[in-house]
Each structure stands twice: as structure tokens, then as C-alpha cells.
């Protein structure tokens, strides 16, 4: 009997003193990698998915335009609208927006500016082509149709 009752002297506790450090490390990782949402998107955004995606290498050269039905339809109607930064803009203000964004960039990066178009999948091509005509007018020719990757079917 005594054979089994023998107790070892080693402590059976796992030292947890370093646990906060580990958690803090994780915490800092997420804090550093987090990008807080800068703009409130006021239009519906259900992006169509695609397969042939390319990544944008330099985020600083990208400006966003959101196109879709306004979320609060009683306030803004149901027609698709264009949103830049935090506000709706008219189609003819797109040039102004592009030029403002371009002025923010470094001089030798200006021709590399990319416009990322986040367009709701129910939008009609008419609106999109109006926007594209304005972009051509503003000489912002690099566009990207933002689309999430297709999930495996």
C-alpha cells in the first residue's frame, strides 16, 4: 500500500507568471496590424467575388470610391450613389475628388495612383460607366474592381 501513497515533492503547478507577457505580445501584434475603419460606408456593399485577383502592393497609392444603393433609402433614395470619403458626391465631382487625392501623393508617385472601386453587385453598369468616363477625364486610368476571393464551392 505504501508504495502507492508515496507523494513526490515536485510542485505540480504550472508557472503562469509569463502568461500575461505572452498575451501582451499577442495583443501588441494585433494592435499594430489593425487598421481601423476610416470611413463610414453609406452605401450597400455586397461585392461580387472573383478568382483572378491581384493584390495592391502599396496602400498609400490607393483611393476608394464606393458605389451602391444608399443604406438609408428614405433619406437618400434608392438610386445608386457614389461615395467618396465620408460623403456622397455627384458624378461630376469625381474629377475634383481624384485631383484632391492626387495632390496628397508624392510628386513622382502621382501617375501610379490607383482607384479602387467598391461597387455593389446589384449596381447597373450605367452608373459605373459614368464614373469611369469621369475617371478618364481626370486622367486616373488605373482602376481596380475590388472583389473578395471566391470561397470554395
Amino acid at each position, binding site marked *: 500500500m505504501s508504495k502507492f501513497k508515496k507523494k513526490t515533492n515536485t510542485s505540480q503547478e504550472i508557472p*503562469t*507568471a509569463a*502568461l*500575461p507577457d505572452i*498575451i*501582451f505580445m*499577442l*495583443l501588441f501584434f*494585433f*494592435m499594430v*496590424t*489593425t*487598421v*481601423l*475603419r476610416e470611413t463610414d460606408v453609406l452605401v450597400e456593399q455586397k461585392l*461580387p467575388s*472573383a*478568382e*483572378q*485577383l*491581384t*493584390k*495592391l*502592393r502599396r*496602400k498609400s497609392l*490607393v483611393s476608394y470610391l464606393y458605389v451602391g444603393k444608399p443604406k438609408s433609402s428614405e433619406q437618400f433614395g434608392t438610386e445608386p450613389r457614389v461615395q467618396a470619403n465620408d460623403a456622397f458626391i455627384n458624378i461630376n465631382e469625381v474629377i475634383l475628388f481624384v485631383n484632391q487625392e492626387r495632390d496628397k501623393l508624392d510628386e513622382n508617385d502621382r501617375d501610379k495612383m*490607383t482607384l*479602387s472601386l467598391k*461597387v*455593389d*453587385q*446589384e*449596381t*447597373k*453598369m*450605367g452608373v*459605373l*460607366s459614368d464614373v*469611369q*468616363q469621369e*475617371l*478618364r*477625364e481626370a*486622367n486616373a*486610368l*488605373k*482602376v*481596380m*474592381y*475590388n*472583389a*473578395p*476571393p471566391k470561397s470554395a464551392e
Partner: protein
Amino acid sequence: MGKRMKQEVNAGSMADIAFLLLIFFLVTTQIATDKGLQMRLPPKPDPNDPPPEIKFKERNIFKILVNSQDRILVENEPYGDIEQLREDVKKFVLNEGVNPDLSDSPEKAVVSIKTDRGTSYEIFIKVLDQVQGAYYEMRADKVGLSAEEFRNLDQSKDDEKELYDRGREGLPMQISIAEPSKIGG
């Protein structure tokens, strides 16, 4: 001197606090998905120049039309399955003058996508995705990569840029997005 008390801050709940913060950031984080289909728009026409005379042989243009009911017409034939488009574009581009209905050479081949104002964006992206996919696959085949590896080549690195340029050579991605017709919408 009196007996010194062992002074210690109770740090047992530190982990809990840290966990709380961690979970907060986990929930609020959204990993930015800046991925999409890249395109280059044509420059705006110069008002001083007359519109350039475009001489394309019929055979060198692969016409894709989408109407406001989201029906697709490819080379004047109704088209059912979008997935099939990729193979057809490849056949068209890599024809090298064999079939008299398809392109003369990859350099001359143009894929034209024309939509209606009432066409939905979703179908447009699907079509564009297929056409770009065809081009990426052809370029990737040339350098012996998969299409996905080819798309992810980092052009800021010299060796990868060389691969990219080699794949691109002689296979220009000429996709024309025509102005939509004004019916519907």
C-alpha cells in the same frame, strides 16, 4: 529596522485584462482585403486630334455583348455557360492564324466587352474575371507556373519581375470595355 514586508503587486489578474484587450482587438480587426481585378482605362480622347482610325480585322476582335437582361452574346452567338468563356478566349488568342475565324496572332487579338447600361455589375465582373483568367493562364503556362503563382509575382523583386515580363511578352492583355449602349437601365 523592522521586519520588511514582502511587497508584491498581485499580478494574477493581469492575464485576464490582457485577454480582454486582446479579444477586443481581435473582434474589431478587419484584415484589409485589397484584392480585385485590375484594369487600365483608355486615356481620354484628345479634342484636337480626330478620332484615330481603327483598323481591326473582324477576326481579331472577340466580341462579348451583355444585354440588360444579363444575357450574353459571344461572337454573335447566344452563350450559356460563363465558365466556358475562358477556354474560348484562350482558343481565340492562341490561334496564330490557323482558324480563319479566330485571331491572327496574340498581339493583334482584342477582347471587347460591351455592356448595356442596365447590365448588372455582377455579371460584368464574372465576364471580366473569365477573360482575365484566360490571359493569366496563358501567361503562366508560358513560364511554367500556375495562374495563381503568376498573379502573385512580386514585381519589386528582380527575379520575379523577369518571370512576369517573360510571361507577358507577346501576350498583351488587350481588353476593351466599350461604352455601354443607352438602352435599358
